[in-house]
C-alpha cells in the first residue's frame, strides 16, 4: 500500500531515486520504481503518479539527466543518470540524513539522560 504523498515523502523519494541511480547506474523510470520497491522490501509501492513528478523535479533541478535509450528487451525507454551536481547533492543529503536520524534518535532513546 502506498502512503499519502507529502513533502517529506517526496523529498525522501527523491533521495531514493538518486541513491538508486548511484548504485545501479543509468536506469529507466520503470527500473527505478522497481528497484525502490525491492529495496524497501516491498513495503513501498511506486506508481506513475509518484515516480514521474519526482523524476521531473530532479531533472529540473539538474540532479539527473534524461535521454532516450534502448532497454535489454529492445524496447525504447527514457534512461536517467546521475549528474555531478546530483552526486554532490546525494553526498550532502546522506550526511544530513545521518545527522537528522542521530538527533531524532536521541529523543526516542529510552533511559539515556545526558
Amino acid at each position, binding site marked *: 500500500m502506498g502512503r499519502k504523498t507529502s513533502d517529506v515523502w517526496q523529498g525522501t523519494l527523491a533521495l531514493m531515486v538518486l541513491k538508486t541511480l548511484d548504485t545501479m547506474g543509468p536506469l529507466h523510470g*520503470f527500473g527505478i520504481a522497481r528497484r525502490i520497491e525491492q529495496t524497501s522490501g516491498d513495503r513501498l509501492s511506486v506508481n*506513475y503518479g509518484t515516480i*514521474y*513528478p519526482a523524476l521531473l523535479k530532479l531533472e529540473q533541478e539538474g540532479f539527473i539527466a534524461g535521454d532516450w535509450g534502448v532497454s535489454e528487451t529492445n524496447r525504447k*525507454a*527514457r534512461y536517467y543518470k546521475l549528474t555531478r551536481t546530483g552526486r554532490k547533492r546525494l553526498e550532502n543529503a546522506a550526511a544530513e540524513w545521518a545527522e537528522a536520524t542521530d538527533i531524532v534518535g536521541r529523543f526516542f532513546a529510552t533511559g539515556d539522560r545526558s
Partner: protein
Amino acid sequence: MSPRAWWLRTIGLFTGRRHGARFDAELESHLQLHIEEQVARGIAPEEARRQALIALGGVQAAREAYRDRGGFPSIDSLLQDIRFAARMLRKSPGFTLTAVLILGLGIGANTAVFSIINAVMLRPLNGGSLERPLVGLYSGDHTRPDRYRAFSYPEYVDIRERSNVFTHLIAESSMRTGITEAGQTRRIDAQLVSSNFFAAQNAPMVAGRAFLPREEDPLADAAVAVVSYAFWRRHGLASTLVGQPIVLNGRQFTVVGIAPEWFQGTMPVMSADVWVPFGAARLLAPADQRGFFVPASMDRSAQGLLLAGSLQPGLSVTDAEARLQPLARAFATAYPEFNATQQLVVRERSRTARGTRPRTDTESLAGAGLVMAIASLVLFVACLNLANMLLARSGARRQEIAVRLALGCSRARIVRQLLVEGLMLSAVAGAAALLFSWLGARQFVETMRGLSEIAIAVDVSPDVRVVVVVVAAAVVSTLIFSLGPAWRLSRPQLTAAMKPSSSLADGARRAWLPGTMVAAQIAVSVTLLVWAGAFVRVGARAAAADPGFPLEGRLIAQVDPRLVGYDATRGRAAMRSVLARLRETPGVVDASFASIVPFGAESEGRAMRADGSKAAPVFSRNVVIGSRYFSTVGLPIIAGRDFSASEEVRTDAAVAIVDDRLANRLFGPNTNPVGRIVHLVDPEGGVDDSVQVVGVVPSVRDDATEGPVAHLYVPFGRTFRMDMTFHVRVDPASEARMLDEMRQAIRAVDDRLPIQMLRTMTAHRDNSSALVWTIAGTATFAAFGVIGLALSTAGVYGLRAYLVARRTREIGLRVALGASRQQIVRLLLRDGAWIAVAGIVAGAGMAAALIRVLQQSGELDEVNGLDPLVYGAAALALGLTTTLASYLPARRAMRIDPAIALRPE
C-alpha cells in the same frame, strides 16, 4: 525552487505540447516494461496488462501531475483561456470585426483627445531637459492687485545679479521679423533672448555655439542668430550652415549655432525658428521710427521682457517670492519712477498662455476635461452596445456553459474565461484605437497649423501616458461590457439552460436588462446630440453674424516694409506710393489702409479720457487709418467728416474719429462728440497726446464670435505704423481678377515689399482663428454626436433582432391563432417604443441639467441651454432612427412561418 527550475518551467509554458507527447511515450514504455516483466513471470498478456494498469494508477492523474510540475498551472489555465477565446473570436469573424470596430472607435476617440491634451498640457517640455520646469517672475503692483508689466533690460540684469533665488534667470521677448530666403520674404517672430537662455534649459547646441554674454548688451549690435533644428533640416542638414549669413529685416546676420532637435523653447505648443540676442534688437528695429518699441534697451522705461528662472534646489515658490521682497524694496528706493510700487511675484508658468501676468491652466484643463468627458460618454455607449451584442450572441453558448458547470467547472473560472474573451477584443481594439487616434490627432494638428497664423509644433505621438490611457480604457470597457453578461451567463440554472428551447414566458421577463441598456444608450445619444446641436447653433450664428460692414467686393493685402529693413522714412514713402498706385488702378472703386484689420489675430488698445472728465480712463481699440477708409470699407459717416488727404500725410494733424460706442462711453449718450477733445493717456493717467474728434462712425465687430467693440481711429500722418493692411473696394464680380491686379500694383511700386496676405474680406473672415476654433469645437461635438447616434441605432437594432428571435415561438403561435401580420408588427413596435421614449426623455433631462451646471460655472456663455429647436431635432433624430431600427426586425417577424416556428427543437 532553484532558478534553473524557474527557467525550465517558464519554457515549459510554451513547449508544453511537445513535452507532453514525449511524456506519453515514456509512460507507454513504462507500461510495456511492466507488462513484459509480468509476462516473463508467466502471466497472460491481457491479464498482465490489466494488472499493470491497475497497479500503475491513473495515467490521466500522472499526466496532470506532470503538467503541473512542467509549467505554472495557474498561468497554464490562463493560457488555455486565451487560446480558447482566440478560437471563439475567430469562429465568428463578423461579430469580432464589428466589436473591434465599435470598441476601436470609442477608445480611439478618447485616445485622440487625450493625445492632444497630453501634448499640450502634460508632456514635459523639451523632453524633460529640466527636472523642475522654469517658474515665471512677474512684476506686479502691490497697490493694484491685477496690474502687471514686463521688465526692462537693466531691471533684469539687476535681479539676475542681486537675487539669491535662481540658479538661472532668463529673459525673453519677440520681434516681428522678415526672413528673406531665395528672394522671398516671410514673416516670423524672432525670439530675443538673454545669453544664458539655452544653458538654463540644458540645451547644448548641436553645432556652433550659443550667445556670448557680450552679445546680450543692447548696444552691442550683435548680428548673430541661433536657428532651430527644423530650420537646419529645411536647409538639408548642411554642415556649413554655421557661419552662413541669413537676412533678417533686410540686414545680414550670421548663424552661430543650431539648437537641438528636441528643443522647442519655453512654450509647449509654439515653435521658434530663429533666436537672436538682445544685442540684435537695435538692428531689427527700423531706423528713425519715432516711438518704435525696442523690447531690450538700456532705457528703464522700455519694458518688454518676460522673465523666467530655475529655482535653487529645495526652494519653494512662496519662499522664493519672500526672498525677493528686500530686492523689490531696494528697487523702489533706487528707481522710484518705475519701481515705486513694484511687487516681485513668482509663480508656476502656464502651459497655454504666456504674458506679463501669471496665468493658470485651470480654464484650459476644464475645457479639456469637458471634451474628454464627452468622449468617455461615447465610449460608454459603445460598451453598452457591445454588452448587448454579447448577451444576444451568448444565448447560443448557454448550453455549453451549462454543461461545463455541470462537469464541475467553477463559476469564477467561467466568468474568467468570458472576461478573457472580452479582454482579447479590447486588446485588439486598443491597438487599432492607438493607430486611429495617432493619425486622427496628427491630422487635427496639421489642419490647425495650416489655419493658424503663429507657428505651431505639437508632438502628438503616443508616449507612456497615452498607452496607459488606452490600456485603462480597454480594461474598463471590458469590465463594463463583459462582466454583466458573464455574470448572467454563468448563473447555475442548469436545468432551464440545458433544455433546448426557452419557454414562452421567458421572452418578456428576461428582456429587462438589455432593454435598460438600450434606453441608457439612447439617453446618452440624446445628450450628445443636444450638445452638438447647441454648439452648431453657436457656430452658425457666428458664421452668419453681421460684422457691421459689407464683405463683398472688399480685398485686403498686408504689407510690412520693415521686414525687408526699410527705415521709417523709406517705409512711409513706400506705403504711400502703393496706396496712390492702388487708387489709380482701373477697377478699384476706392482704396485705403489700416493698421488693424477686423477678424485678424492682432488688436491694439489705447486708454483715453474725455477732456474735463474725472472718470477712470476708457479703453478702446486703436486703429491707424488713411483717408477714405470708411468709404472703402463701407461704413457711413454718422456725424462730422472723414480724414482728409492732407491729414493722411501731415504729422501735426491732432484729430481722431470715434465710433458711436466710444462716443457713448466718453461723452455720454446723445451727445455730439464732434469738436470735443480726447486725451490719450498712459497707464498712470498722464497725458500722451490730445486729439480733437472730427467724425463719428458706426461700431463694428472685430471678431466673429464677439460683439461690437469701441474703436478710435487716428490718421496715418500723425501716427505712423509700418505694417498696414491695404483695403481695396472693387466690383464684387471681379474679386478674383482684382486680387491679381493688386499684387501686380504693389510689385510695380517696389518688388522687394513682402506681401504677407492677399485675399478677399470674406475669405479673411472665414479663416479667422476665432471662427476656426468655434467650427473645430462644433465639428468635434457633432462628430461625437453622430458616432453616438450610430452606436445607439446599432444597439436598438441588435436588441430588437435579438428579442424577435427569442419570441419566434410566441409569434408563430399568435399567427397560428389568427393574428394578422400587421398586428404582430404593431405589437413588437409598441414594446420598443417605450424604451425609446424613456431614453429620449432621460437624455433630454440629462443634457439640460449638464448644460445648466456648465453655464453656472461660466464655461458656456453663448450656448443656449434650452433651445427647443435643438432638443426637437435630437428627439426627432433618435425617434426616427430607433423606429427604423425596430421596424426592420419587426418586418422580418412578419414573415415567420408558424409551421417552422412552432416545430419542437
